[in-house]
């Protein structure tokens, strides 16, 4: 999980903060900090699908899955290894 989180964190910092982390914590909300706009969300979804080989449903493109490094990490983990509980769930 730690390696995945670090990789996602590096992507967010490189692509949305231009390499300067600005003390971004793993729990910080991208929305509240104004880090990612609607085009940024599209970029993020494309990146996750291509980099991690996952298919993201429209219902899953929600802040509860994508709005912080913590949430992103949990979401990608869940999508990569679907469990019976999470299969078919929106979050």
């Amino acid at each position, binding site marked *: 999980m730690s390696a995945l989180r670090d990789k996602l964190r590096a992507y967010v910092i490189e692509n949305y903060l231009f390499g300067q982390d600005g003390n971004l914590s793993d729990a910080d909300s991208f*929305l509240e900090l*104004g880090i990612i*706009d*609607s*085009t940024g*969300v*599209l*970029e993020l*979804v*494309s990146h996750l*699908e291509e980099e991690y080989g996952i298919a993201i449903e*429209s*219902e899953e*493109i*929600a*802040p*509860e899955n*994508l709005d912080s490094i913590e949430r992103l990490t949990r979401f990608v983990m869940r999508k990569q290894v679907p469990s019976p509980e999470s299969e078919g769930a929106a979050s």
Partner: protein
Amino acid sequence: MTYTAALSPATLRIDAGRETDRIASRIRDIVFGQFKRKGAVIGVSGGIDSSVTAFLCARALGKDRVFLLFTPEADSSPDSLRLGRMVADALQARSAVEDVSAILEGARCYERRDNAIRELVPEYGKGYKCKIVLPDLLDGSRYAIFSIVIQSPDNQVRKVRLNAKAYLGIVAATNFKQRARKMMEYHYADLLQYAVAGTPNRLEYDQGFFVKNGDGAADFKPIAHLYKSQVYELAAYLGVPEEILRRPPTTDTYSLEQSQEEFYFSLPLAKMDLCLYAKNHRAPAAEAAAALGLTPEQAERVYAMIDSKRRAAHYLRSAPLLIEPIEEV
């Protein structure tokens, strides 16, 4: 401060006569006084905003000092030109039609757009129509993600979620349209020594619903401080033709009819107007919700969207920035 009791469509009501006089005086000051230009060019789309702008400029400068320009292209609705001409007739103002399709062909606007669409819909081609849409912002707590609606030649309609590459490709291509139009407006401004009037209303200006150096470019923007419903009030006062008042606002950018709500605001314009007003006057989202028939969560989402679009629009509104000021100019 509590705004619930006051927040209704009546909240935005203005004294249309007084506001018209105030704007007209300011237009004269800007065009004649500051810019030393002899009149104004207005690109008229047959929509409410450009029509009101044309009427205001004619009121301010005189009908002989305005020039209306119609710039249809291959995807334009025929209504746009017909209604635009109605404005010119009503004002008895000079006008010209400049079809910008050939300019757009030259820039490969349509080809680039179609190639971007084919990233997701390989069969897209001749005879197909399209538009880009947003989901209803009030429906759930998802991000508002663009989709493209495709209509095949045999009228089969399908909706496909856009990825970043396709979305940016389509927008970058279709933005040629607004830029080609603006280029033509400045051609006439150069010919006539006129200034170019921009036509955004407050919602569009604040939320970035314009193309930088396209319809966002102008020498002055006489209705950028007015909420959409106030533009309608002025339109009625100024005598804008009834058919234009009744026409639903469209983007007139895509081959399928596309409302502004579908493309940008995700909320009916009247509600969007009041939400923006409420937010601007620091009314808590919960109070705005009660007045607008929304849930507090929905109003919070609209407030968050306003902030998000405002941030994104900062770049669009910015004039070129210098490394240091040049004092002499």
